[in-house]
């Protein structure tokens, strides 16, 4: 594996939390390499450190020690503004609770990623329409989140995650609030995006979704126990 192929490289990453006076070691000497275009499933029981790993890999949280090389750049000590720019340019987020703005329509939610950019409104709208078409939700573009089912809301959130053509999509329990049929649709959609757009995808889950991934990482007690 050449250095050029590596999208995310976590080196000796440690993270501790203090909760109710006790120190919890969320990540213990984690080393991980994720290649460009890989579909990675990170799974493990609740509290095993998988969400913390996702947070530090995306720059949402800083590790206590160690390095995170994201697309060739060490983000472990980057400024907040630099991290914001990095997320806007290279990362798309998918959340368990969808996190759509209830007062905005589907297309406005998707567009919101590009509001702070210099792009013209027409261009933003065109991109949002393309993203909604990619997730097969164009017919719902003027609907508000409350008017959509859970699966549709998550597809809308995926459209929001891909509108800026990110290098990486980070999904935190993307099917956690969905029924089995919607889970299948959402995971299938992420797989399609991974194949067609060559986007690196990291899915954190407590369920067994290993059948969708190129690589499955099992975690327990803040450590990687198995990579398959």
């Amino acid at each position, binding site marked *: 594996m050449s250095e050029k192929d590596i999208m995310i490289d976590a080196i000796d990453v440690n993270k501790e939390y203090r909760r109710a006076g006790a120190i919890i070691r969320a990540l213990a000497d984690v080393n991980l390499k994720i290649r460009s275009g890989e579909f990675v499933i990170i799974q493990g029981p609740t509290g095993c450190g998988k969400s913390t790993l996702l947070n530090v890999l995306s720059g949402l949280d800083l590790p206590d020690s160690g390095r995170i090389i994201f697309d060739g750049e060490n983000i472990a000590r980057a400024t907040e503004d630099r991290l914001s720019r990095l997320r*806007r340019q290279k990362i*798309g987020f998918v959340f368990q609770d969808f996190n759509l703005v209830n007062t905005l329509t589907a297309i*406005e939610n998707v567009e919101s990623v590009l509001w702070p950019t210099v792009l013209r409104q027409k261009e933003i709208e065109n991109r949002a329409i393309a993203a909604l078409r990619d997730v097969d939700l164009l017919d719902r573009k003027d609907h508000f989140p409350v008017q959509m089912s859970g699966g549709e809301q998550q597809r809308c959130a995926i459209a929001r995650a891909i509108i800026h053509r990110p290098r990486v999509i980070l999904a935190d329990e993307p099917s956690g609030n969905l029924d089995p049929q919607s889970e299948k649709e959402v995971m299938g959609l992420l797989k399609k995006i991974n194949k067609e757009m060559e986007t690196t995808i990291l899915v954190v889950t407590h369920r067994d979704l290993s059948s969708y991934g190129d690589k499955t990482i099992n975690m327990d007690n803040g450590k990687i126990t198995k990579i398959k």
Partner: protein
Amino acid sequence: MWRKAILLSLREKRVFVVFTLIYTTLIFLTSFFIDLGIDGNFGEMAWNFVLIFFGTSLFLSMLYAWILVSRKRRIWATFKCIGYTNKNILSLVSGMIFFTTLVGFFIVIEVLFHYAAIIAYVNQTDLNIALLILVDLVPVVVTSGIFIGVQIVAFILAYRKVLKVRPIIALKKVGE
């Protein structure tokens, strides 16, 4: 971003309507008492009322900023996750506050115009120009200007609160 702030304001119907009505009332009362103070009709009392109303507008702006940031922490956290900087979010929040005041100003002007029109219509035969003007335009413009100036304090408060919103909140499950 300002246009998006207006969009977000208008979609937040309840909060927007309540604060616009309060601002409208405050702008009207403040400019009315400034007008009285300038004319010397109400003595020192008029200026005391003006000071009270400015204080109220300061409190109101800070309350509005607090509501917009605190009640929507999850939205701002999500926006931070998708690449918004603190300044981007502050632009949205301050735009929402500023727009509300501006709408209040236009409603007051509109009401004063209609008042003048109705008085003129009713008293066609005995038209006295002084009767037509309830409050001069200058006090209304000055009041609105000062109200907007006072909002700088609210913007500072909003910025301090926006800084404290950690993007990681967006990843927490509802109720967690």
